């Protein structure tokens, strides 16, 4: 049931402001990106939740363009890192360089890398070696970069939107589990339909279109993040999210049959956090001031699909994590 919230008082206005911003952002993105509504909605939810997003899809589907468009619409400082096999951690984080001081002496000074931006596009992240991929771990979780013995804070808001090609492609390295777990959502960018492809061709081969308009800035994004986190969740709803995560663990008594059959490692506590925060934003966008079971179900797939590590048998049989998550949702009852 989608019903608008009557904007009464400052609280109602704050929620209404969040909805209006999201609607405007999606409208601006849709002027540049054809289709991919679910991907755009997922990226928007993750941005308001303050989480990072991993976009997976074949080359040429508009992943990079989507991130650039969002950065422009939100007036965020944007930087792009093209991950290659020879990229080194210092190329991302920055390094201490020896400079001459005004007094003629020499001193080390930190030169920040491209990661010092509000919105970092880690393009084709799985083309870099695991060592370089791991350079993002501290930055994504703590929003701090430590070089030598000095920690450097990253600007706020800070988002990493990473794109990756499917793992089966040549010259790719799988992301380590710890890195994957730091992504709030993993979104799959599918191939456009016939009508969408025709619209893409039409839009990109004609006269240059207008650029997306700015609809918000970094500080308003931070305010929206605070609003979203205060949406109440009933205990039986949060318990459902917790039971979903526990059900993914084959070694636990709460683990369901599909997890025992297919999963080697279940989802981490970050998965439950991502489900609850994502559900809060989904609830606001659905016109509610509370989280429903339906919100949990909607965000469970992008929050869980990259956090489940399948076992050998499941991989040999071609079982996907999406299928396992669908079976988890079917197996775990809403109320106990």
């Amino acid at each position: 049931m989608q019903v608008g919230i009557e904007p009464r008082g400052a609280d109602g206005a704050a929620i209404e402001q969040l909805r209006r911003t999201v609607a405007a952002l999606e409208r601006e993105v849709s002027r540049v990106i054809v289709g991919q509504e679910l991907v755009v909605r997922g990226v928007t939810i993750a941005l308001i939740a303050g989480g990072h997003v991993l976009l997976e899809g074949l080359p040429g589907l508009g992943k990079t363009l989507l991130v650039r468009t969002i950065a422009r619409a939100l007036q965020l400082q944007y930087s792009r890192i093209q991950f290659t096999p020879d990229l080194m951690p210092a190329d991302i984080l920055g390094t201490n360089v020896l400079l001459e001081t005004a007094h003629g002496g020499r001193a080390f000074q930190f030169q920040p890398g491209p990661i010092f931006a509000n919105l970092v596009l880690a393009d084709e992240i799985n083309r870099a070696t695991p060592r370089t991929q791991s350079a993002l771990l501290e930055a994504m979780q703590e929003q701090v970069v430590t070089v030598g013995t000095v920690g450097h804070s990253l600007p706020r808001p800070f988002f990493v939107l990473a794109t990756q090609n499917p793992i089966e492609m040549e010259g790719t390295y799988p992301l380590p589990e710890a890195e994957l777990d730091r992504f709030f959502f993993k979104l799959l960018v599918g191939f456009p339909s016939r009508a969408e492809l025709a619209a893409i061709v039409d839009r990109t081969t004609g006269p240059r279109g207008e650029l997306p308009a700015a609809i918000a800035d970094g500080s308003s994004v931070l305010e929206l993040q605070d609003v979203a986190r205060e949406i109440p969740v009933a205990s039986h709803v949060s318990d459902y999210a917790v039971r979903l995560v526990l059900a993914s663990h084959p070694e636990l008594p709460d683990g369901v049959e599909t997890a025992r059959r297919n999963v080697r490692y279940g989802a981490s506590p970050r998965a439950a956090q991502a489900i609850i925060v994502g559900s809060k934003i989904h609830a606001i966008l659905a016109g509610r001031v509370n989280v429903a079971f339906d919100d949990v179900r909607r965000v469970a797939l992008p929050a869980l699909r990259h956090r489940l590590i399948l076992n050998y048998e499941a991989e040999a049989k071609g079982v996907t994590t999406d299928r396992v998550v669908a079976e988890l949702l079917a197996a775990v009852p809403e109320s106990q």
Partner: protein
Amino acid sequence: MHVVRAEQLSALHDEVGALVRVLARFRWRLGFERALLFGLRGVIGSALAVVGLSLAVWLVVGLDDRLTSYAWVVALPLVGALGLAVLRWPSDRQAALAADRRLQLDERLGTAVELARRLRRQTHGQRFDRLQIRNAIEQANLAPGGWLTLDQRVRREALLALVLIVIAGGSLLLPSLPRPSLTRQQPAASSVDAGQLELAQRALPLDTPESAVADAPAVQPRARTSPDLASLASRVQQAQAERVALDALSQALGRVSAAQPAADAIQQGDYSTAKQQLTNLGDEADQLSDAAKQQLASALQQAATTTGSADRQLADRERQAAQALGRGNYVDQRQALRNLGDQVERSGARSESPDQLERDAGQLQQQSDAQGAGTLTRASGTVSQGPGVPAPRPGAGVDATAAAPEPSGGQGPAGHGGQLNGAGIGTGPGGDPLGDTASRLDTAGQSVAVPLMLGTGAGVRPPDGTEDQTGTDPTAGASGVAEQVQAQQTGQVTPEQNLVPSEQRPVVRGYFQ
């Protein structure tokens, strides 16, 4: 500052009060529905009680005087059910959760109830608590839905209650009908006895003629134990067949190493473990080599043939598993082996343990022996008393009732060769040794020591399984005959003491002729 805070608290409590009023409406509604459902169940129970009481009053003499004192039995289910419904009257939270589910309020009321509770405890709420409670109240007021929700289950139970009320009403007419007479059932009991008697006669390897059984009053009390024996015999036979079927399956599974645990479990009589092992085998069927699958398939096919009619369901499952293993489809194989495991558990649950089977067989053997001895003794007794009862077949000297008036070697009025107490030779004309023992004894006065056909000792069935009946020294029991049979087979007795297997009888007959 304090004034603003007080105003906020007051507004909060207004919203909580409004929420409580909305919830009270849902509580009444849910509680009434629950009472209705419980009431229907109580009515069903009371209707059944009425039917039971009516039947009791109709059948039992003198109960109708005390009928009113049993009225509480009828009222108890209904009162109990309604009392339970009141005791389980829904709380605020239960009403909110039920309303969320039924009115599709997306957990608004459930969340609002929790926030209201928190507000009562903490006196101040979070940023959006008021907004959420207000939103929940608005949506609950807008939600459609009548006073009652009669779902499929309630309708079904209402229909059942209605039918039972009609039956209960009809049963109230029973006491006005004439009571059934218990004496009318006597002939039926007699006929059952007769049927059981016949069954027992068929089950026992004894040739007691019907006339002897029917005419001799002394036999009847003894015959009453025969149905037990027949039932035991049937049970032992069935249990043996089922055990053989499971043994065949165990042997078949034991031929493949992967199925060895299942085979062992069946052998040990642990059928739930066997089921689990077969399920595991099914899950891992894709890891079996083709050679192992083929071997298992052929072994199962063979087991199915062996099992045959002893346990048709088990044989079918074995056959299906064999076919699935031969086809190479993993899903089919897994399902077929899982089905086989289920059937093994069912068959195992039906069959008796080897120890019990052994005990039953031993008991059956003892009872058979005892029954055989008793019957022969009774038959002899009849002979000694009777003036000569006509034998059913001329010349059937084996019949105890075709007794001769002479103490030995005499002829019956219709049967020849009737014998009594001790060795003797019949002189009657012709006849088959089985149906016509006289011919076997027609030795023209030549004295031949032939085992007695009748005696006071226990009877024994010949080792070849024919209907021939032999006797031996009247003082010897069944075990003595068995020993003689064994001794004869090992060549330790003279031909005169021969028990004459059926296939050799023409030779012996020719020799004597």
